């Protein structure tokens, strides 16, 4: 295929050529960045929590009529007994927070009591001996809490924190040599001994402030009783989710009327909590996906439109070439090569624009740096799209009969 005559022909359509190239460049720049955003959001929202989400319910309970701290801990114990007796409930425990709940307590963890020496942040989950079986956490070293280790804490500052269970990620961060079990770390002025390590448990927050320590959680053997109320995490037996979801607040009200469980979000499936927590990530991915599809469709349609126009304009020249011995294949190749030349110009400019747009997004919106592979994939997609879009009008061109050469007008 000779490129020279194509370039000569393009020189007659400077503006049309430039417009298509520009459109391809802009499309490439936007599609690369949109794909990168989609990929980031998908990676974010598919992070595992480490708990058995499908069979968990969370109940947020608030006591009415101001019981004292002692009264509250017996009320909590009574509630847990009620919950565990329900048919369909496998186990339950009381806590302050749960993965994806976007609310909770974080502490700094260090090797010494001074706060400034903290090595990493960690989420604090209140737990008891029922926590591991309820959440379905996998203990990879050490042991679970024992019943006599569980204490009542009046508030965050009065936690005992003498024994703790940590996640593997946290253990490896604190003790990279893998000997965390039995070691002491500091969450407060007093040492805390790591008695167990679980494979994985995500912190409660899904937004960016916890991104660097998303799997560094600490379970503490305390039960918190405050006026803010109790939260219960309930493990439901297989197939019983709907029945327990519908009946659980009625059962709790039957046991004690003086409480508030919001009819709107007092009882939530953890799977619904996940949907809510990642709604904006999923929304952004969908929106970017839609924009990519529309963008590629419009660019493809634009190429079809302009190429068709050019084919129509050159019917006579095509006829002459055919009459002089050019095969159909030659004509087809001519238009495909022409598109490839224009697209190549477009993607060269577009790659620069894509990187520039990414740098702008980094500067203004704290996005991450896009790997160049996205530009590579984008270039391939756009080039292929251009060739496919050219195919139909080019085939039509190849079917122009040599007789056209002899017709005037």
């Amino acid at each position, binding site marked *: 295929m000779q490129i020279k005559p194509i370039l000569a022909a393009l020189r007659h359509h400077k503006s049309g050529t430039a417009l298509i190239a520009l459109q391809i460049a802009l499309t490439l720049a936007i599609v690369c960045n949109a794909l990168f955003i989609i990929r980031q959001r998908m990676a974010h929202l598919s992070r595992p929590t480490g708990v058995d989400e499908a069979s968990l319910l969370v109940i947020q309970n608030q006591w009415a009529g101001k019981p004292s701290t002692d009264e509250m801990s017996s009320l909590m114990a009574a509630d847990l007994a009620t919950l565990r007796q329900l048919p369909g409930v496998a186990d339950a425990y009381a806590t302050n927070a749960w993965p994806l709940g976007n609310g909770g307590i974080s502490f700094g963890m260090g090797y010494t009591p001074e706060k400034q020496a903290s090595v990493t942040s960690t989420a604090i989950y209140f737990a008891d001996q029922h926590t591991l079986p309820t959440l379905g956490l996998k203990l990879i070293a050490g042991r679970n809490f024992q019943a006599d280790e569980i204490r009542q804490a009046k*508030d965050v*500052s009065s936690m005992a924190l003498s024994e703790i269970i940590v996640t593997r990620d946290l253990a490896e961060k604190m003790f990279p040599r893998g000997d965390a079990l039995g070691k002491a770390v500091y969450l407060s002025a007093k040492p805390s001994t790591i008695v167990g390590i679980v494979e994985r448990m995500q912190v409660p927050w899904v937004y960016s402030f916890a991104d660097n320590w998303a799997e560094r959680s600490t379970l503490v053997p305390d039960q918190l009783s405050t*006026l803010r109320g109790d939260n219960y995490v309930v493990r439901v037996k297989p197939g019983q989710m709907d029945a327990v979801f519908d009946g659980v607040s009625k059962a709790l009200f039957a046991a004690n009327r003086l409480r*508030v469980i919001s009819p709107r979000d007092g009882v939530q499936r953890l799977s619904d909590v996940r949907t809510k927590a990642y709604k904006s990530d999923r929304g*952004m991915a969908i929106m970017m996906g839609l924009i990519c599809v529309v*963008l590629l469709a419009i660019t493809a349609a634009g190429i079809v439109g302009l190429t068709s126009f050019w084919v129509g304009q050159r019917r006579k020249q095509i006829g002459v070439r055919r009459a002089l011995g050019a095969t159909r294949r030659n004509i087809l190749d001519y238009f495909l090569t022409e598109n490839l030349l224009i697209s190549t110009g477009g993607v060269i400019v577009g790659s620069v624009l894509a990187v520039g747009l990414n740098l702008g997004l980094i500067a*203004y919106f704290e996005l991450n740096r896009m790997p160049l592979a996205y530009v590579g994939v984008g270039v391939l997609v756009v080039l292929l799209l251009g060739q496919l879009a050219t195919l139909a009008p080019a085939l039509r061109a190849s079917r122009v009969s040599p007789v056209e050469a002899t017709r005037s007008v």
Partner: protein
Amino acid sequence: MFSYYLELALRSLKRSPGLTLLMVLAIGFGVSASMTTYSVFRAVSGDPIPWKSSQLFVPQIDMWGPAGRGADGEPPNALDYIDAVALMRDHRAKLQSASYRVAPTMEVPGSGRHPISISGHAVYSEFFPMLDVPFAYGSGWSVDADTNQAAVVVISGKLNQKMFDGQNSVGKTLDIGGKDYQIVGVLGKWDPQPRFYDVVDTGGFDTDTDDVFLPFTRAIAVNMNNAGNTSCNSNPAEAGFAGMQRSSCVWIEFMAELDDATAIQKYREYLDGYALAQKSAGRFTWAPNNRLRDVPAFLDNQHVVPSDTKVSLLVALGLLIVCLVNTVGLLLAKFLRRSSEIGVRRALGAPQAAIYAQFLTEAGIVGLAGGVVGLVFTALGVLGVGMVLPKDIAALAHVNFSLLLLTLVVAVISALLAGLYPTFRASRVQPAWQLKSN
């Protein structure tokens, strides 16, 4: 003459229906994507109290010192109890109020009804006049009620509807957290977005409105816990709500009305003086690092408009530009295909202006049709926003007349802009050339 151009344009557009449809759809998609994302952006970036936002200020005090500052050197975005109460006591602004979020339980009269959880804010009496809060019945409470820790309450119109069927309930009582509170005021419709008086707890947007407003002093006296966020630089030394009040944990929002530049300057000096006094008292060991921002600046500083919203708008505008480039290319092809027709018209005496009028009319029609398609997609898009965005933000985006009008205007203007270059090229067609070759 215009009707003649209209007829010419319609005939030309009908001649190549595929190309016309493509241009109309391209403009429709581009405009509707931009308008949908713009409707969200417009909703979240609005000024919640435009007539007064530049007189309302949020003071920030650096009670944590250099160790507690972020990378940008900013002090916390809320106050601790000690400083909030000191600022209230000194009372240096025209109007001011500390506030924090509460979520008490309320008994519902009638046997067998469960108590319900209500949400609200503990505020000072000046909160209501300062924010121009509208009342349906009654009013806020007096300064005396602040001092006396009076058991009074202002309730929302929604709660009034629920409990008293919307009747004037001023003077009646509600059992909140086990104590009787006398209703002194019922609010009218008041749902400012962004929720500028409590960005700290809402992040800016909230689908739920406050049910009640109670005196701050009363809420503290009856140990009504903070139901909003608490940030601590170090663990409180003492347990419980009392310990929280003596700690440097921040959980109180503060707003002050300062009407002119002198008042603002004086308040800045006051804040610095306060911080210096704390330093000489030994509570702070660092130089004053205060902030005093008005509401728009504070909302901006707190990144109330989610960056997702801005990125989406930007990408959608990019889509619109691509659609326009696409339309320029197609119009160019379409117009130049009619070079011989233009040649004849020019030869018969039509001036360049006539060619402009004719082809811009055609572009305008494409734009108008694209706008109508865009209206439909924008309406669908705004409906669909609820499925992809968090509830508190999606609820704010809505279709109204101005959005629809804007959609049409943007579509027509974009099409005319896209038509400019092709029309310029068409007007430059040399009549002699066209007449000769064919």
